[in-house]
């Protein structure tokens, strides 16, 4: 493919061989853009303050989790209202391994993923017989049951008292500040996103999409429904477990109320607002939902001089805005931010013609 003039609008992509056709980023411009974004991300702690870096950490962890949920809900069509609890399984599993067994963090992180994947797969078993609404309710039950177990299994989780987690140690470094943790989250996040991107170019990923689009047709074509549904549950839970492990070690103290159904709904909102069945969508959604309360709090801070009691209603307002955003997105742009971004790009690609 020849190098394009970067100052000219792209009008389309024309490939002449299979290799180019299967490439991630077609024009040179896109490759440069990805490189520039990566550079910006790796240099973020240099030009941004600690506060921004700490927010970026939360965003990064949310991205990993929402990628996981999107694999299950967006790509495979299985709804889960239990991912908040799975996040807890990951956090507690990692916490148990590092804090109670004293093993290093680089073992705990993947192990948390594997344990959560196993738990997720078990709660995915009803998906053999149930779909849609009934499955959603089954995962809701998973949420309630796991929350109960976390709160009552004192020997492992310290119950309602919460669990203290050590700062993770990697290659002799102790990641006990926001900046060092940022690089950990960033690397895991990039691996997670790359894996998700490539997954849907593979045999398994395409089977997931076939199951979502029409499961009976997929079965007829020889896709083993049960196997792929359970696999989707396990893979999705693996992601969420890793996110939970990162989150737990970032917070350093975890307790059952960090993993309630509200968290599940937040993750669902990320997936929906970002765009179901879109890897980039999970990223946009995670950024949006994580920033929403922060931005709202900042705005409230501006008004607090005029309305002194605004802090008391801000909590309720946060939930109200959150809920309303979900409803508005579902009504006006069910395909989420990913679609909006695509529309904007298409507009400029085709400008000045709208067709």
């Amino acid at each position: 493919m020849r190098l394009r003039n970067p100052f000219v609008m792209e009008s389309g992509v024309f490939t002449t061989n299979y290799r180019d056709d299967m490439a991630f980023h077609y024009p040179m411009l896109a490759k440069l853009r990805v490189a520039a974004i990566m550079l910006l991300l790796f240099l973020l702690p240099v030009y941004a303050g600690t506060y921004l870096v700490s927010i970026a950490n939360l965003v990064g962890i949310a991205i990993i989790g929402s990628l996981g949920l999107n694999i299950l809900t967006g790509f495979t069509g299985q709804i889960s209202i239990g991912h908040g609890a799975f996040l807890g399984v990951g956090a507690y599993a990692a916490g148990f391994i590092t804090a109670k067994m004293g093993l290093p963090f680089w073992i705990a992180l993947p192990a948390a993923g594997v344990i959560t994947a196993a738990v997720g797969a078990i709660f995915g078993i009803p998906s053999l017989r149930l779909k849609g609404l009934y499955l959603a309710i089954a995962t809701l039950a998973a949420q309630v049951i796991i929350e109960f177990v976390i709160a009552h299994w004192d020997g492992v989780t310290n119950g309602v008292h919460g669990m203290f987690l050590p700062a993770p140690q990697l290659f002799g470094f102790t990641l006990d500040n926001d900046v060092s943790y940022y690089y950990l989250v960033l690397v895991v996040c990039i691996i997670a996103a790359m894996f998700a991107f490539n997954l849907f170019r593979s045999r398994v990923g395409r089977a997931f999409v076939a199951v979502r689009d029409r499961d009976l047709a997929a079965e007829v074509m020889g896709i083993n429904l049960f196997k792929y549904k359970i696999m989707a549950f396990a893979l999705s839970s693996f992601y969420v477990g890793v996110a939970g492990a990162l989150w737990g070690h970032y917070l350093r103290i975890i307790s059952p109320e960090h993993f309630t159904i509200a968290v599940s709904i937040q993750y669902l909102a990320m997936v929906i607002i970002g765009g179901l069945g879109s890897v980039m969508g999970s990223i946009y959604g995670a950024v949006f939902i994580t920033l929403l309360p922060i931005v709202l709090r900042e705005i409230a801070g501006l008004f607090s001089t005029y309305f002194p009691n605004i802090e008391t209603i801000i909590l309720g307002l946060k939930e109200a805005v959150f809920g309303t955003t979900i409803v508005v997105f579902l009504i006006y742009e069910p395909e989420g931010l990913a679609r909006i971004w695509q529309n904007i790009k298409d507009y400029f690609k085709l400008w000045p013609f709208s067709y």
Partner: protein
Amino acid sequence: MVFLMQLVVTGLVVGAVYAMVALGFVLIYKSSDVINFAQGELLLVGAYICLTLVNVYHMPFLVALLISIAVSFLLGIIIERTILRSFINEPVISVIMVTLGLSSAMRGLIQVIWSTDTRTFPEIFPTAPVNIGPVVVSQVYLWSLFVSLVMLVAFSLFFKYSHMGIAMRATADDQQAALSMGISVKLIFAATWAIAAVVAGIGGILLGNINGVNSSLSHIGLTVLPVAILGGLDSIPGAIVGGLIIGVLESLSGGYLDPLLGGGVKEVAPFVVLVLILMIKPYGLFGKEIIERV
């Protein structure tokens, strides 16, 4: 033995209220295949409005009750009109998500308006406890049982004999056929939501009388889901039987297992049952089975 009977009676009474709230789920699911995750918040709105009218404006309880029923009715219609109407024939996930979004929007607004403190109703029902054999029951419970039973019977009759009720059942069976017979499906949907909001509101007022009103009351919306699933999501008798079973189960597990396991079993027991039901008999005791074959 007395302890056991006490638990069973309490369970039956709470179960009757559950049955009534579950009726809201069943109604909406029957006519439009939507499950309303905001049912708990509808319950809370009804309870809070009634409470405010009684406590702040010192209205007689019956007047307050009627007004809050009217407000719930309107609220149901508004929700259906503005939000749910866009979701006819949309994928299940959008519908689930929109009611979840709705519930969190409503919960937020409720918090802004009424804050999160627990408020109590003034004593509306006589407080003297009643002895039924060896079992002592407070009158609030009996009144709740009575109201729930009346409501459930009234709705059963409504569906069997009234014009509207028959039209609702027709819509539930087959929307297109109902449309071609001259039934306004849109009107039916609005009516369903209105009725669901009203039963939720009354349920909220009854439960509020028993335990006081605070935002955690909306969890009943989730507790009642196992009830609806156990009975079958589209069956009114199912809602009643499911309500009573789950009510007793909750009460028994609260009484016998809570001391052993350190509390909270009451909340989780219905969900354990739920998972078992979903594995064994996914469409509940009386639900219509949807069979898919390749």
